[in-house]
């Protein structure tokens, strides 16, 4: 078992490139070579035209909070010790929504529209999980009110 009691992704051949990239701290999205549409989550066919000719491309890992919830009570395995934690839909700059957690911020200061960037938690030697944190680098657009130094 992993050191985390949280559920871990069960990686399948169709999702393996995604998770291998996460291990390198890269967030991948898929783009269809047939129709040009992008998609998230990754899958074996293009969700727009069902072509199987899909390319993996890196996302910049930047986006904004589309919506969120601060979870105060949950039976979700592995998350009880983390209450309150933030579940969110983040909209990537590439226009795709990603379900995720917001981390490295005060849950009380999260807001819709807040700029965020991907960060990876190395859960096991083989597995890293993408989450998002407030964008912190100087010169970045926006500048949420929950920026923490790191």
């Amino acid at each position, binding site marked *: 078992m992993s050191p985390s009691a949280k559920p871990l992704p069960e*990686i399948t051949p169709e999702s393996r490139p995604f998770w291998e990239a996460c291990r390198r701290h890269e967030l991948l999205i898929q783009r269809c070579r047939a129709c040009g549409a992008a998609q998230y989550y990754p899958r074996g066919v293009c969700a727009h035209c069902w072509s199987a000719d899909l390319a993996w491309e890196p996302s910049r890992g930047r986006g904004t909070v589309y*919506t969120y919830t601060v979870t105060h009570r*949950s039976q979700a395995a592995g998350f009880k010790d983390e209450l309150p934690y933030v*579940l969110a*839909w983040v909209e990537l700059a590439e226009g*795709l929504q990603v379900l995720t957690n917001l981390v490295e911020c005060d849950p009380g200061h999260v807001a819709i529209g807040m700029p965020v960037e991907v960060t990876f938690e190395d859960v096991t030697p083989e597995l890293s999980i993408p989450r998002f944190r407030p964008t912190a680098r100087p010169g970045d657009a926006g500048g949420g009110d929950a920026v923490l130094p790191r």
Partner: protein
Amino acid sequence: MPTGALIAGVHEFPERKTARSALEIQALAARAALEDAGLALKDVDGYFTAAGSGGLGPLPVLDYLNLHPRYVDGTTIGGASFVAHVHHAAAAIAQGRCRVALVTYGSTPRSQGIAVGTRGRTAGDYLDQFEAIYGTSTVGLYALVAQRHIHEYGTTGAQLAAVAVACRRHAGRNPVAFYRDPITIEDVLRSPMISSPLHLLDCCVITDGGGAVVVVHPDLARDLAKRPVAVLAATEAVAHTAAGKRDYLVSAAAQTGPRALGEAGVRHGDVDLAMIYDSFTITVLVTLEDLGFCPKGEGGRFVEDGRLGPGGALPINTDGGGLSSNHPGMRGIFLVIEAVRQLRGECGERQVPKARLAVVHGTGGALGTRHSGATLVLART
């Protein structure tokens, strides 16, 4: 065009915590609903449920009930399932595939101590590797929509709470409702936060329960024990993550509502009561908007003046709903049962005067990721 199908009998299992099994609940409810219809066990030739188990769908229930139908449907799309079953039963009857369709449901999460709403998902299905790993819960996935609604339209916690207050007022008139004591908006807002912005009293109760519905061919109308209720329209739809581009404020009801009212040939103003799946207060707000009872974004203002409560212009969930009466995990069947009882004028203290037309809308799954919607328009005959 009306479906032609009639709802001939209904029964709701009255206990909210029981020592009986889910199968026993369904057997007792099936017997009572057939009796209500004036039909017999031997008449049943179609069977519908989402309450099966073990990957075998309805098979265990059919075995327990010792039924041999010529039409079987185990459609499972969450809480909307049993509303969808009425749709499917009406279609099967219209095609001559069956004449007496039995729909049953039974579940015992309360006596089993399962926390339906806050229970996490295990990472097993393909999609869970992108979702369950983040600590998703049913409440949380609805809260995502509530938060966005507040952001987009200025909806307030007090407006969400008004839905819970209205349902509790109805529940006070239902002798078998789980919670019957009145609550105020302040009570809702002061109740513990579960997943912001949803408080405990924005969430449905967890009870045991079950019920049965009998849908029949119009030819049987004269043989029935009571005046049947007409299924004027029946529709269903889904909404999901849509490859990563979704307006989470628009639910499947935006598709089913216009279709159902169009099929039935009725206007919103004709509707005497609505049974709106109330897993959470936000579910009702979004559903009322998408069904077209008010413009998109106006849900908060629409519900805050007591319109949904007893004596209001659009009473909803007159049994008290999932927020106050019962919610054993999937409550679509109770929406149908209560609407039928109201249209037959059997609801005593909670009866909506002269109820002739009801809209029933079930929601299943989670608004914040993927869900189903099923709408019926039911009428007195």
